[in-house]
């Protein structure tokens, strides 16, 4: 989105406050709730995403599995992942999960990004990439706990799900939500979505899924895309959904307080040099050194052979 927004709460590689005049007036955050227990794997959401965002991925190859494309790409911002899991009773469970950006409250991509304003977080919780500011370094990929952003081979910019920030900004729900035929996808305020999820979880528990629950991982401050899972105690069953995602400590160390400290140390080194020169002064060679050098040379060479 290139239009100016005045409700930004975080902006990548920016140390001063963001344009946030509209924030703080009883903000409500939004969320998409993905109910994996209602999903039939029809991929209408994938199609709706392509259509609204006007994306056409390259045609891949069929390897005999339902999952198509095989992975998220710069042109496929959402993807149904199909996992065939054998449960403890020995029955097959087909766990289908719509993958895509989770819109973390504490976004690792934004933390890692070195380009000012290439990644922003709106007051409503959406984390959005502004590709015109993207430099294509791929640090967002390293920063993301969910392996979501992809760099396009075409233009070397990073892309991912925008949670249809353009639609949401004008009061519409994301395109994928519109397309879902089973009600597995719902969209609303995060509070409402949690309440809705609580009803769903209760229902699932009454049907024998004792470990049903909401996936809203606290390690990243919660997410604005949440899952209802039949097996919330084992998120990884759903094609490797991260059990306890958080921004990697390596990324925190790389992008945390160490950077300003390192910068200060470099400045200090230069300033220390300057003041050493001012206080102690240069180390110079004078006539005396030349004379003594000549004396020593004479001694070493011996008295003979003086021209």
């Amino acid at each position: 989105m290139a239009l100016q927004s005045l409700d930004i709460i975080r902006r990548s590689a920016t140390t001063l406050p963001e344009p946030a005049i509209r924030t703080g007036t009883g903000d409500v955050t939004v969320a998409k709730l993905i109910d994996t227990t209602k999903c039939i794997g029809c991929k209408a959401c994938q199609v709706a995403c392509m259509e609204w965002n006007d994306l056409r991925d390259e045609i891949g190859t069929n390897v005999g599995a339902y999952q198509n494309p095989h992975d998220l790409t710069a042109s496929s911002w959402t993807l149904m992942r199909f996992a065939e899991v054998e449960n403890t009773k020995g029955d097959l469970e087909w766990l289908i999960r719509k993958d895509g950006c989770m819109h973390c409250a504490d976004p690792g991509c934004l933390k890692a990004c070195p380009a000012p304003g290439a990644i922003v977080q709106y007051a409503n919780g959406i984390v959005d990439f502004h590709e015109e500011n993207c430099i294509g370094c791929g640090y967002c990929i390293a920063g993301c706990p969910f392996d979501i952003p992809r760099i396009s081979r075409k233009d070397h910019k990073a892309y991912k799900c925008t949670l249809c920030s353009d639609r949401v900004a004008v009061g519409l729900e994301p395109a994928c939500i519109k397309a879902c035929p089973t009600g597995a996808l719902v969209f609303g305020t995060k509070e409402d979505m949690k309440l809705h999820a609580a009803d769903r979880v209760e229902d699932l528990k009454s049907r024998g899924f004792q470990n049903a629950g909401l996936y809203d991982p606290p390690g990243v401050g919660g997410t604005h895309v949440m899952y209802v899972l039949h097996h919330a105690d084992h998120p990884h069953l759903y094609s490797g959904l991260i059990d306890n995602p958080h921004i990697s400590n390596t990324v925190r160390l790389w992008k945390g307080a160490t950077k300003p400290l390192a910068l200060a140390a470099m400045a200090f080194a230069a300033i220390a040099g300057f003041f050493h020169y001012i206080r102690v002064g240069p180390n110079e060679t004078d006539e005396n050194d030349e004379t003594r050098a000549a004396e020593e040379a004479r001694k070493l060479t011996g008295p003979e052979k003086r021209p």
Partner: protein
Amino acid sequence: MSDTHITDAPGHSTGEAGQGSPQRRDTFVRYTPNDRTNHWLTAIAFVLAGLSGLAMFHPALFGLSSLFGGGPWTRILHPFIGLFMVGAFIFLAVRFWSHNYMQPADWKWLRQYRDVINNREERLPEVGRYNGGQKLVYWVIVVCLAGLLLTGIVMWRAYFSFYFSVRVVRLAALVHAFSAFVLIISIILHIYAAIWVKGSVHAMTRGTVTPGWAWKHHRAWYREMIHAANSRSRPD
């Protein structure tokens, strides 16, 4: 030491003391034209790699990317400049490798850093072609550049990052930033030492130093040079 020689017999071209000749007595060749070219190619590449890297290091320095044609161009150019720097430095490192073995006297020299920074050179152990500080900077650069090269390849999203797991890329990013930090501090020290010890910049720009300079700062090297000149002039 084959690349170092004395342009003339010491004390010969000087005009003896008292003659008050204004001419410089830069009779000791410290760096050959090839040494100097190699050094400055590395130095220029370091400055460019440093500025473009710092642009991506901290938001406060992102403005440096304007020097390279904007953010994407900075991202594109930085790894190539880095490769060039490493390539240039490899030649420099080979050239100076054997001069930089740390000796016990070098560690003693380093321990007496108080005398070093207060210009009390007469109290320090005798120094060969390079002193302990110079040798330390040399090895720090060798290690940092090796680290920057390896981690830089891992971080190079356009060509290589997809060969590595995200954990490895994260670690590479951290080590890359840390190595660059250590390298920059070392080079600040290196540059300041050249400004501080008068005659050093002349050595690396024009190639020569005066006998007095060599005698004062690198006495063991000075003696070697005299001996070498001696043995060259004896046969005739």
